[in-house]
């Protein structure tokens, strides 16, 4: 041992080449060492959720800068680097991802693209939402401008996925989640889109609620076109369901006595409230026109065309606003058809018979009030009466054989008189008309069947030359 101490005092000359060796080692090994440690550190962070992570190695010291999504994530990231063999010190430059308050995420659609803005909770959510947006919107450009933030409400991903699916149903608009409140605005792509979106919103995850839904739908359009040349009434556009379609077609059949009803209606959601209640009276007004078009667009009714005679035109204008549900607007552009050439009594009678062969003046059951469905028919009868001003007309009422004959007699008289009153109100001179009731004494069909009875309940016009 003493020898060793003695010898050791003579070991110093070797320290000079040792120093040279050391300098060379430091010179050549530092850079590879740092690269090696950076690689190992990056690998250690692979399974830890971080944003914007940066690793800088100086010697054996690692500086870690990153945004973590939780305090625990932050700690485990630092611990993972500390555990890397060879790392001497870790300079913790990590921070928590900023918390967004309120946590706002929105998807805005315009003509060419969908832009996602606001906050996303985690990189995985951000990627998932972007992917879902691309899938839902097939082909539309999706721009993701969201930043990562903490503070997302629970089930945020599910809510955002559901809402992205709704963005696909929009033509343009914006859907926003602010904490757990959802607001929507814009225009639906298709008719019924607004309703489809409203229905989907019921599936929002628990805790989410709709703060405002201002999605508008394209106008809900229904059209009816009356063409006297082809004698057709063409119905186009939309109806809410099959029942309404059937009701409208049936009403058209009653009101348009000589026209064939062409039903090109399609079913769609999104009808304004009171749709059927507005369309049926509007069809009644159209039935009084010689030629005309009815356009119902959302809650706006536009009626245009030619009335058969002057008084009908003013009656239409005066009565048009009656019978429509509240909140509906009615616009009328009604002119009067030029008066047709006068005809003699024989032609006049022929015209009356032709019209009455196609349609029957209807009354309320057992009473003498004229059914509103018959106003179109009455207008045609008035137009004919105006063409033969030199004739007198006997308006004859007939009933079926049900009930006792005195009642039937009285009813037939009253009904004939009601028709005369209607004609006089339309501006025809009262002196030209005589109301006569025949009760059930002149049947034109057997009273044994309902069909026969219906034929027997009738009003006839008998034209006579003025003396």
């Amino acid at each position, binding site marked *: 041992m003493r*020898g*060793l101490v*003695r*010898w*050791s*005092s*003579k*070991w*110093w*000359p*070797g*320290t000079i*080449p*040792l120093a040279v*060796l*050391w300098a*060379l*080692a*430091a010179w050549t*090994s*530092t850079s590879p*060492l740092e690269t*090696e440690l950076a690689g190992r550190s990056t690998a250690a962070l692979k399974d830890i959720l971080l944003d914007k992570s940066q690793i800088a190695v*100086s*010697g*054996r*010291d690692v500086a870690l800068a990153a945004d973590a999504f939780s305090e625990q994530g932050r700690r485990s990231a630092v611990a993972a680097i500390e555990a890397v*063999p*060879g790392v*001497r*010190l870790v300079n913790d430059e990590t921070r928590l991802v900023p918390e967004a308050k309120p946590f706002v995420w929105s998807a805005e659609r315009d003509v060419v693209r969908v832009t996602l803005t606001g906050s996303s909770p985690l990189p995985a959510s951000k990627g998932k939402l972007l992917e879902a947006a691309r899938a839902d919107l097939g082909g539309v450009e999706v721009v993701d401008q969201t930043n990562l933030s903490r503070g997302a409400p629970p089930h945020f991903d599910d809510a955002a996925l559901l809402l992205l699916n709704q963005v696909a149903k929009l033509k343009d608009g914006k859907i926003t989640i602010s904490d757990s409140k959802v607001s929507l605005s814009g225009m639906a792509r298709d008719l019924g889109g607004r309703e489809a979106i409203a229905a989907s919103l019921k599936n929002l995850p628990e805790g989410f609620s709709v703060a405002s839904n201002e999605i508008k739908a394209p106008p809900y359009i229904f059209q009816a076109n009356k063409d006297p040349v082809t004698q057709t009434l063409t119905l186009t556009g939309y109806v809410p369901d099959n029942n309404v379609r059937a009701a409208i077609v049936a009403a058209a059949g009653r009101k348009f006595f000589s026209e064939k009803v062409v039903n090109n209606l399609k079913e769609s959601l999104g009808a304004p409230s009171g749709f059927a209640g507005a369309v049926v009276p509007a069809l009644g007004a159209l039935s009084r026109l010689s030629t005309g078009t009815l356009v119902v667009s959302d809650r706006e009714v536009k009626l245009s065309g030619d009335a058969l005679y002057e008084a009908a035109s003013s009656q239409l204008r005066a009565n048009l606003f009656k019978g429509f549900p509240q909140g509906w607007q009615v616009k009328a552009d009604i002119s009067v058809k030029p008066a047709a050439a006068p005809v003699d009594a024989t032609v006049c009678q022929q015209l009356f018979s032709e019209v009455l062969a196609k349609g029957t003046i209807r009354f309320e059951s057992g009473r003498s009030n004229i059914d509103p469905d018959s106003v179109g028919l009455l207008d045609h009868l008035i137009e004919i009466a105006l063409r033969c001003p030199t004739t007198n007309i006997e308006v004859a009422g007939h009933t079926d054989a049900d009930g006792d004959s005195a009642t039937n007699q009285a009813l037939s008289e009253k009904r004939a008189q009601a028709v005369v009153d209607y004609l006089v109100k339309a501006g025809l001179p009262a002196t030209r008309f005589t109301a006569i009731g025949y009760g059930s004494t002149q049947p034109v069909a057997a009273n044994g069947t309902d069909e026969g009875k219906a034929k027997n309940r009738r009003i006839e016009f008998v034209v006579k030359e003025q003396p």
Partner: protein
Amino acid sequence: MIFLATFDWGWLLAALLLGFGMGWIAVVHRGHGVPKNLARWLAALVAALLAAALARVIPGRPGYWLDLGLLMLALYLIGCGIGSCLRDWLLPRPASAS
């Protein structure tokens, strides 16, 4: 330590061999040794550097260089010790035989 040993093994081995060679020579070397006072000071310096390395007070690359230097010095000294003892044991000097 193990990481450094595996990463810089070549340099460390070179230091060990250098020490072995120096130790081998030192036994028969007739030159002056390090005076005791200076040796104490040097020992104190090495102890201070060792303390600094263990306390990890020197950051970044200089920190690594210090670790590397101390490790190489340690292996040099071990090499010296082995070299000297081996030489002394294998080849008794004529002076000690007389």
